[in-house]
């Protein structure tokens, strides 16, 4: 279980100091599918960075069961990310001089996962094992980044606008792969998006505005990627 307590995060100094997160608190169950919804500048990406251990809050606690990751040292935080967390970004950030196999191995090696090629197969890229990122379409590149994140067997998968750079059809396809793999491996998903329709796929929807949570609701009936509007 992830418990976030009264997180405050600011950027800048002096007069230009700006509070991006203004005392955010939230609870997420294991295996949950949480979508953090908000407009640009609402603080949703900063919130994702803080709860995933990429950034430290100015104050507040981020508890994973009993461990407060905000209080961990740099090395402990690295170790925490290694053992618990997977990331998928809008821009994929694949290593350009490595093929699909090696890019996924980057994640797999951290978990000692020798069987990582099954994940590559699962995202439909078994035939493109030796293709380089520049030889793949945007959707395929994002699927490689999905495979890379899942090959390290994370307990929680953080996604920052994973479909932001994709067209509608490809975006749905990527989301569909993620949902299928979630059902298979049962990890927790925390996804940041500005696309309200994607929220219909999630169990828990958190709405953010101006650095605050403005609403939390749960979907009783979950839609698939192909059932939502775009």
């Amino acid at each position, binding site marked *: 279980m992830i418990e976030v307590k009264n997180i405050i995060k600011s950027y800048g100094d002096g007069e230009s100091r700006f509070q991006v997160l203004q005392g955010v608190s939230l609870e997420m169950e294991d295996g949950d599918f949480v979508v953090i919804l908000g407009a640009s500048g609402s603080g949703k990406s900063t919130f994702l960075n803080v709860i995933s251990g990429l950034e430290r809050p100015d104050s507040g606690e981020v508890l994973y069961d009993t461990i407060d990751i905000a209080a961990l040292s740099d090395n402990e935080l*690295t170790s925490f990310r290694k053992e618990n967390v997977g990331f998928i970004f809008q821009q994929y950030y694949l*290593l350009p001089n490595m093929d699909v196999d090696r890019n996924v191995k980057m994640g797999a*090696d951290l978990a000692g996962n020798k069987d990582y090629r099954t994940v590559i197969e699962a995202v439909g890229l078994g035939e493109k094992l030796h293709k380089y990122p520049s030889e793949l379409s945007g959707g395929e590149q994002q699927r490689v980044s999905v495979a890379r994140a899942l090959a390290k067997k994370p307990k929680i998968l953080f996604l920052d606008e994973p479909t932001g750079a994709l067209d509608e059809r490809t975006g749905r396809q990527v989301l569909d792969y993620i949902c299928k793999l979630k059902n298979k491996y049962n990890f927790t998903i925390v996804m940041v998006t500005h696309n309200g329709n994607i929220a219909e796929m999630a169990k828990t929807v958190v709405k953010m505005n101006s650095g605050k949570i403005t609403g939390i609701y749960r979907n009783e009936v979950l839609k698939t990627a192909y059932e939502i509007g775009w």
Partner: protein
Amino acid sequence: MMIGIKNASKLVGISVISCCAVLVCTMFLNFYLDISSIEDEITSELSLIFYNAQVSTAKVVCLVSGGCLLITSVVMLMFYIKHYIDTHKKELGILKALGYSNLKIAVNFWVFGISALLGTAVGFGGAFLLMPKFYALQNEDKILPEIAIRFHPTVFLYFVVLPTVGFSLLAIGYAWRKLKKPVLSLLKNDFRTFVKTKKYREEKINDASFVAYLKKTTLRSKKTLTFFILFASFCFSSMTQMSFSMKELSSEMMGAMMLIIGLVLAFTTLFLAVTTVMKGNTKTIAMMRIFGYSQKECAMAILGGYRPVSYTGFAIGTVYQYALLRIMVDIVFKDMEGMPAYQFDVPVMLISLAIFILIYEILMAVYSDQIKKISMKEIMME
């Protein structure tokens, strides 16, 4: 336009190397020209042998040092221009899209020749400052008649004017060649498109870890940087060991000069090469850190591959300095009386190696520590 003196100032490596090359070559070539003018005044056989040895030394030093350092400077210039174009692809693409021709953009690269001008001018001036002492040492026993220092415009032309013009033209030509790409390929974000894909396609899958593979890829992807690191270690090894032998074979001044040149060349080249390696891999390091790779693993993947390269450079430098001194003693100065016997100095080699390992590992530790400072936001801010 977009390339200015500020960009040329980053080519400090070329300035340092050309300064060292011109310093050494000017001293020896000027000496050669001045000593040639007194050939008719030589009457004794001993003087003639000494004269011939001095002439041969000047030629060998000019050719070996000058040639070696010239090649390194040219490689470094090309590397920097390619690096500049790679990191400014978008801006150059926009210029091309606006209608600027390749040549019109490339002409702006002439400013890179300023780095050569700066280095050669300092080297040339420095050589003339050191010349009185150098001439006195070369003829310490007064075997030859008095050798007067003269200014030879041809030396200035060869070592200052021509390198500056040559480097400017080379920069323009190389940039022009590199800019001959479609506008779209320049405009696209290089992070996703610049890969040389075909080269490694045939490679069989092996079970090497990601870190080991990245180490290999980093080393292979920038061969020029590998060359610079090899060159830096080579300079350190050959020049430090040679400087100790020179103290006995020639003079303390020659030894000290060699040591200083060796250290300056080695550290400048190593510093520039490793800094470029780190900058070029910032995104990879940031991504590895995000995924949970430790600082040590990142350092091993990015910098670890260069360790064997630098030790190989040290070994080559050791062999090179031994061979060069052997040739000088056994061939060039073979008829000289009172020439001390030359033996390979094992203690000096071991001390040089120990100092080299110590400095190299400290430098790597400093760079490794910088990995901690690479912000993971670096990758997210795009």
